[in-house]
């Protein structure tokens, strides 16, 4: 009887409106929440694609600095400052050549005839992304291994060789070619044998073993021409930290942008997720406000009936029960449906991500999230409905 009486007080269109907005809001909220959980480790942790992210920084070269070259070098203080940043794990400086290097082939060599000026740089081996067998230098031997950037080879094969009608070279072919190096400086000169022993995708420079360069700098450079640091290799412990980009921007350091594209990408991804999360949260809050407005309207319209029920002996708890159950049932149903929808969306995006990347599937938190929101909403609704009815009767 009470049910029949109270059922008539409901405004169906408003209940449907509430259910619909809550469904949309919660589906987006849960999907975005799960998407963040799924993709976050991919971008922040040590997974294949972003493992040990590093970047090389230098100072921006402007017209002013062209005239005063001292400005492009890092000072000791600046290096120390970099070391102190929490998102930086390691700072390593490049050793430069302070002498003249020429590479050339002799007539007997299996290499096409050439002669060119070169430069070398070096960094400690632990920062290299490759570790070729021949990457050793021994003072007693006359051999210097060289690592070149992988993109130099691409530049040659797809650019230079193409335009000059030269043959393309594989990594293997290049690694088999031996050429000569002549190092000149400090009034002395020495010839070495050399070969390209590896290709780095991380460091964009012509590298020789660190030990060699230290030795050679001592031997061939003028004593007053000490090692000046113009490039610094940084390793990040939190490569996705948005502070990275902000810091370098504020310092006006040039950073190998491509290397940090993911950082921007993650920043945008995170911003987009937060934005969508907030929007969906607003939708959910609006739907809650909507049902409260509807409830207020029901109470105002049926105030006399509710009062009469109280007058014939019904307690405010008994009167409120119908509205509590009705809103609770609608909410449970909608949230459960939102959970199913979100799981469906998740399965769809997981298929897409799996096609593109190799990643470990995270646990499904959609239903846990749904359950927590449900408990929160039911708590709020039941308390407020009881209070409102009590106030009226």
């Amino acid at each position, binding site marked *: *009887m009470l049910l029949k009486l109270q059922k*008539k007080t409901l405004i169906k269109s408003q209940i449907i409106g509430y259910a619909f907005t809550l469904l949309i809001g919660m589906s987006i909220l849960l999907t975005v929440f799960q998407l963040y959980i799924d993709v976050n480790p991919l971008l922040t942790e040590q997974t294949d694609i972003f493992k040990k992210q590093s970047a090389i920084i230098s100072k921006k070269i402007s017209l002013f600095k062209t005239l005063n070259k001292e400005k492009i070098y890092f000072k000791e203080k600046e290096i120390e400052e970099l070391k102190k940043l929490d998102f930086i794990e390691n700072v390593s400086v490049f050793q430069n050549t302070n002498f003249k290097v020429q590479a050339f082939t002799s007539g007997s060599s299996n290499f096409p005839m050439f002669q060119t000026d070169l430069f070398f740089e070096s960094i400690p081996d632990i920062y290299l992304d490759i570790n070729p067998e021949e990457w050793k230098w021994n003072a007693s031997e006359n051999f210097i291994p060289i690592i070149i950037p992988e993109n130099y080879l691409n530049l040659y094969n797809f650019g230079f060789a193409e335009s000059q009608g030269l043959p393309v070279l594989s990594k293997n072919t290049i690694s088999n070619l031996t050429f000569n190096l002549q190092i000149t400086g400090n009034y002395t000169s020495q010839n070495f044998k050399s070969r390209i022993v590896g290709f780095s995708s991380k460091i964009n420079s012509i590298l020789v073993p660190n030990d060699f360069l230290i030795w050679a700098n001592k031997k061939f450079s003028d004593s007053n021409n000490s090692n000046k640091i113009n490039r610094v290799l940084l390793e990040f412990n939190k490569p996705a930290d948005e502070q990275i980009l902000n810091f370098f921007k504020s310092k006006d350091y040039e950073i190998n942008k491509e290397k940090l594209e993911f950082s921007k990408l993650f920043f945008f991804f995170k911003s987009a997720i937060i934005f969508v999360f907030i929007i969906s949260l607003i939708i959910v809050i609006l739907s809650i406000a909507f049902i409260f407005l509807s409830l207020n309207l029901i109470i105002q319209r049926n105030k006399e009936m509710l009062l009469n029920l109280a007058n014939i*002996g019904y307690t405010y708890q008994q009167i409120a029960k119908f509205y509590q159950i009705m809103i609770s049932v609608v909410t449970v149903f909608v949230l459960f449906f939102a959970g199913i929808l979100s799981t469906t969306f998740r399965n769809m995006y997981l298929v897409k991500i799996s096609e593109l990347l190799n990643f470990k599937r995270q646990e499904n938190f959609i239903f846990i999230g749904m359950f927590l929101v449900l408990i929160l909403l039911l708590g709020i609704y039941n308390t407020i409905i009881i209070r409102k009815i009590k106030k009226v009767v």
Partner: protein
Amino acid sequence: MQIELKNIKPQYMSEAEVKASDIYLQKSVVFEKRKKYLIKANSGNGKTSILNFIYGSNLKFDGEIFYNKERKEKEVFTYRKEHISYVFQDFKLFPSLTLLENIQLKNRLTNYKTEEEIIALINRVQLGEKKNDLLEKFSLGQKQRVAIIRALCQPFDFLLLDEPFSHLDNENIEILISILKEELEKQQASLLMTSLGTVSCFEFDRVLNL
């Protein structure tokens, strides 16, 4: 159970307005068990108010009301369910429910009468034919009969009747009086009835002028 009123006065009335009252602003007015009281007054003198104060549905009064010599405002609601039944002047029925449903709505709460007893009462007040009709179609006199039957569907020590026969013909008044007398006897209960003038339907133990 007894009900005692001490220095009761509606907040909306001045002292001058209630000067001649046998109830308002009296040091003590006691309503005892198994007695019948008639509260008589002209319109606008607070007849409904005094019943509402006792029933606990209006608390805008000065003074105190004691139930069994205790004053427990918070428990007024339980008295309402178990000790005091009230036939409201405006009936407080539900027009969207049928006659039978209106009565069952109350009886489901108390489980005091069986369905057969309820139907027997409906038949006695000559509304048997209409028991499944929506109340919105009923005349005032018919509604009054329904309201009285509904009030009997609970245990009570006091039955409050607020001008209960104002829309009824003599035949129906007699039927209702006999029903009410039986119920009062059965429940060993008291009667508090308001009226515009003197009525002789019950043998009142005391007539109070408001």
